[in-house]
């Protein structure tokens, strides 16, 4: 079939039309935020975290009890309208203690994770990127620190600095960053031979720019996953140290110490374990899905 030439008309182009982009431009972080919002599970996790933090701040004020006063005649009572989460073996209200403990556990978890993040990422990143002797030296130093018996280090720290929250956090971060450093180093080792790194180097980018703009963001996935393991690890290491007498002094409580105390009573007074353990699970779950959401949101390849 023949189509006549006059059926076609020259439309021409407007200069300005050529510049029009089909969707509004966003900055990198705004883009991340938008994508994060779309992830239902991640939003759920974020909301959960916010609720937990609010409860940690407000929870202890919601009851007439305080976390330290003993009431021996009321010990080991099941949850009831007077004691929403029941009482422990010294008659203290579990609800109040759970939220006091939340403050300490969440704080320890986040602090340890952040410190591990900074030290670990820097150490592993530099070590992996530089390679050669620097890599060898830095990794071996990390190995030595890892090999010395941890408990000895903690005991010495306790003796020198006294017991307390600050010493605890220090004790947990002496060796906590090493795992992160190793994982980051591994990633960097495999990424640095990619073409875009070569390109950046050729263009004259400095090491810190290459690290900050290329290598680290592309290692975000294992970094985030490792961070979501650091938090529960920190909570449980604190529980373990307290169990050995190197951690928090009573009547201070953390979820870890409450779980320690509640564990032998599992058969008889299960609520003493149930509440702290459930909240630990919920918190970790929340951090995990938020972490996953962040990872998905940050991954440029999943961009639509």
């Amino acid at each position, binding site marked *: 079939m023949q189509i006549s030439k006059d059926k076609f008309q020259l439309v021409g182009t407007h200069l300005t039309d050529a510049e029009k982009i089909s969707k509004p431009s966003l900055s990198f972080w705004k883009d991340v935020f938008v994508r994060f919002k779309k992830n239902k599970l991640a939003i759920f996790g974020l909301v959960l975290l916010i609720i937990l933090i609010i409860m940690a701040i407000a929870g202890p004020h919601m009851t007439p009890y305080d976390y330290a006063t003993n009431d021996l005649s009321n010990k080991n009572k099941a949850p009831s309208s007077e004691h929403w989460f029941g009482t422990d073996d010294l008659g203290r209200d579990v609800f109040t203690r759970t939220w006091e403990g939340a403050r300490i556990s969440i704080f320890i978890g986040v602090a340890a994770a952040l410190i591990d993040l900074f030290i670990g990422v820097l150490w592993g990143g530099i070590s992996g990127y530089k390679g050669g002797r620097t890599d060898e030296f830095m990794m071996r130093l990390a190995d030595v620190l890892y*090999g010395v018996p941890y408990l000895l280090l903690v005991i010495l720290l306790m003796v020198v600095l006294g017991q307390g929250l600050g010493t605890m956090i220090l004790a947990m971060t002496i060796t906590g960053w090493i795992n992160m450093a*190793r*994982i980051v*180093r591994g990633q960097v080792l495999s990424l640095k031979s990619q073409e875009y790194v070569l390109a950046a180097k050729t263009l004259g980018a400095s090491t810190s720019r290459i690290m900050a703009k290329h290598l680290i963001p592309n290692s975000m996935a*294992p970094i985030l996953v490792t961070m979501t393991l650091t938090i529960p690890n920190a909570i449980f290491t604190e529980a373990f140290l307290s169990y*050995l007498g190197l951690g928090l002094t009573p009547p201070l409580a953390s979820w870890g110490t409450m779980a320690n105390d509640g564990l032998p009573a599992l058969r008889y007074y299960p609520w003493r374990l149930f509440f702290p353990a459930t909240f630990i699970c919920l918190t970790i779950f929340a951090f*995990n899905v938020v972490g996953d959401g962040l990872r998905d949101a940050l991954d440029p390849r999943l961009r639509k």
Partner: protein
Amino acid sequence: MAKCIGKRLLYMLISLWLIITATFFFMRIAPGNPFTSEKKLPPEIEANLNAHFGLDKPWYAQYGDYLLRILKWDFGPSFKYKAQTVNDLISEGFPVSAALGLEAILLAVAFGIILGIIAALKHNKWQDYTAMIVAVLGISVPSFIMATFLQYFLAIKMGIFPVARWESFMHTVLPAIALGSTPMAFIARLTRSSMLEVLSNDYIKTAKAKGLSSGVITVKHAIRNALLPVVTYMGPLTAGILTGSFVIEKIFGIPGLGSHFVTSISNRDYTVIMGVTVFYSILLLLSILLVDIAYGIIDPRIKLAGGKKGE
């Protein structure tokens, strides 16, 4: 390659020496000594004890003696357990801990990787969510709670497994699960996240375009590259698990090496502390070396220090 390994072994020895020295030093500064007991010992008896064990010599002499002994693989007698030497303690405890550890690692690696792969392949579908919930449970329930739960429900209430001790294969199941649950969960998550990364790479698209089935793609291309972080994690994990877990061994009454790591420090049993530290460090450094070698096999682009190219 051989030169590379040789150099690494040398560095390992140096690291080992540094660990021994640091531990020796820290051990001596800590307050207390092997003879600290409820009853304060009269000075003459304490002097006697110190002389017998060579603790009255100047610290550099003790240090030198100790290093020589290690070269002969003789860790000395235990201060607390008079009937045994440290070598005895290690040779009795290690096989038990190692057997338990291996079981736990097999469980963790097998189930972890499979779970992670399934989750990544079915990203954001119900399989992904289920797998990740299982993983989160594994991470957020610490091994001692998991151990007590398993013991209470499966052994005491339901009687499927024995309650404690180390006598038959059935005795090993619960402790292995308790020990392996957290590593399994972590390996699952690591696998999933790196698989997701790998799957969105161009060469996977190429393979699909070439018409390869997803099974072949997964196995031949994806897994290998996704395993890098898992392998990194497994290095120190292996050394740690093989030398035993204090809490699990206590709850299940298993005569392994784990308890010695903790009790030797409370007892200030110097020789045992040094012995288990040296032993553990050797295992640790070896497994890290293996991990680095594995890097080279998995991802040929990685050139290690001391290899053909420096950077």
